[in-house]
């Protein structure tokens, strides 16, 4: 692991909101997708996760809310172990947004989709309505409740997808390629949105400019391992490190 000097400032074991220790994951066909991931993220910290395709980024992210269960190691979020017993509470705590908004938005209307999480949390109608309104306002889609996802632009769908987890009031946001497919204006709006949101964030992306603009800390993954973890400025300045892992400077 190539740690940069900034690393120590972030990796404080006590007080870590997201704590991943020795995480291994093997697919049923025997493929080792994750080979000992250890990482701590403090509350409110915004972290970029970069690396080539097939590095295991998505597999890793699916461990944070218990979709994937570790073959070895442990994941803790907000002091709760991510395990079968805690699954419901962990999923309320960690909002996971997938790359393709058509996977995320599966209901006939935007309202139904944004309400899906809160309804499954067992909230009352008034509170569900309030949360939907607030989440849509947060992503700049107020008044879109009755709209049909397939009649919206990709940028609007991406933002609606984000609203579907914001309505659950998670403390952690885990986003997969949030800027993929967005036009420059959509990207700009997303950058402002990510900066303004108070949640702890782990965002996987190939968009180096986004990394530079939003995230103070960056983790590089390659072949199922963390190969670098530190301050974004230092990592993005290290041309050799980036090129060794199929990445490029912004």
């Amino acid at each position, binding site marked *: 692991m190539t740690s940069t000097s900034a690393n120590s400032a972030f990796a404080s074991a006590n007080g870590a909101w997201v704590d991943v220790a020795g995480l291994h994951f093997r697919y049923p066909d025997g493929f080792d997708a994750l080979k000992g991931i250890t990482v701590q993220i403090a509350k409110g910290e915004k972290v970029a996760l970069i690396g080539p395709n097939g590095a295991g980024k998505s597999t890793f992210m699916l461990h944070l809310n218990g979709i994937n269960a570790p073959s070895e190691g442990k994941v803790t979020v907000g002091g709760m172990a991510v395990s079968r017993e805690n699954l419901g509470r962990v999923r309320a705590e960690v909002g996971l947004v997938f790359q393709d908004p058509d996977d995320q938005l599966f209901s006939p209307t935007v309202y*139904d989709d944004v309400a899906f999480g809160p309804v*499954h949390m067992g909230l009352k109608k008034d509170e569900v309505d309030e949360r939907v309104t607030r989440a849509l306002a947060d992503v700049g889609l107020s008044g879109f409740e009755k709209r049909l996802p397939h009649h919206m632009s990709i940028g609007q769908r991406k933002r609606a997808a984000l609203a579907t*987890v914001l309505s659950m009031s998670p403390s952690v946001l885990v986003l997969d390629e949030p800027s993929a497919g967005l036009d420059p204006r959509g990207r700009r709006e997303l950058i402002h949105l990510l900066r303004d949101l108070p949640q702890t964030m782990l965002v996987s992306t190939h968009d180096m400019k986004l990394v530079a603009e939003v995230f103070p800390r960056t983790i590089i993954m390659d072949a199922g391992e963390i190969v670098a973890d530190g301050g974004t400025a230092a990592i993005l300045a290290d041309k050799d490190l980036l090129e060794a892992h199929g990445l490029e400077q912004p």
Partner: protein
Amino acid sequence: MGSFLALGLAWLAVLVVSLVARIGPQRVIRGSFIALPFVFAAFPLIFTKHGDPLGSIDLGLFTLRISGEGIRIVATVTLKSWISVQAAALLVFTTTFHDLLEGLARLRFPRLMIAIVSLMYRYLAVLTGEASRMMRARSARMAEQAGARRPGVRWQARVVGNKVGALFIRSYERSERVYVAMQSRGYRGQIAHLHERPLALTAWATLCGGLLMAVMFQFAARQWFPHS
């Protein structure tokens, strides 16, 4: 004869509603041709029923007997299905999909079926989009060379087959991703739903009015043609 009177009145009601909704009878009737297969399914009844023989057709090997009762039954089945489908078309034209689903839920339609219908509706557009993108990619590469023979039907059939297969696999994989997205938001195998809003007074009035009308059609038919 009574059933024809009731059906006629019902059709009139559909017509009036379509005019009030400013959809017009043409669109509704055009939307109703989907009922045609049911008519064909009922058609053999003309020959298989025995009451009230009207004549026969000699086909050499066997003789088809035309039954008056059979014709009446086919005519009522035809009209009934045709008017029902017109009413259904009218409902779809005038009601948002979301309201339709809510209506089904109120009628105690199984939750799982509603979820399936709702997902189907949501992904129809995604699927057709995917299919048309694949078609476009194929058309873009359908070049021709002067003098060269065009590929045969068998080859083309295989291309279409492969495409259908690819579309199926893509949809299957998408369904896995959608399932994960649902799980991430608390889905544990049971579709939760919001507490229903109480029905508005106007909705109750419409519902009762509709029921009353149907009963009145029946009553009129029985009153005027008591023996049929």
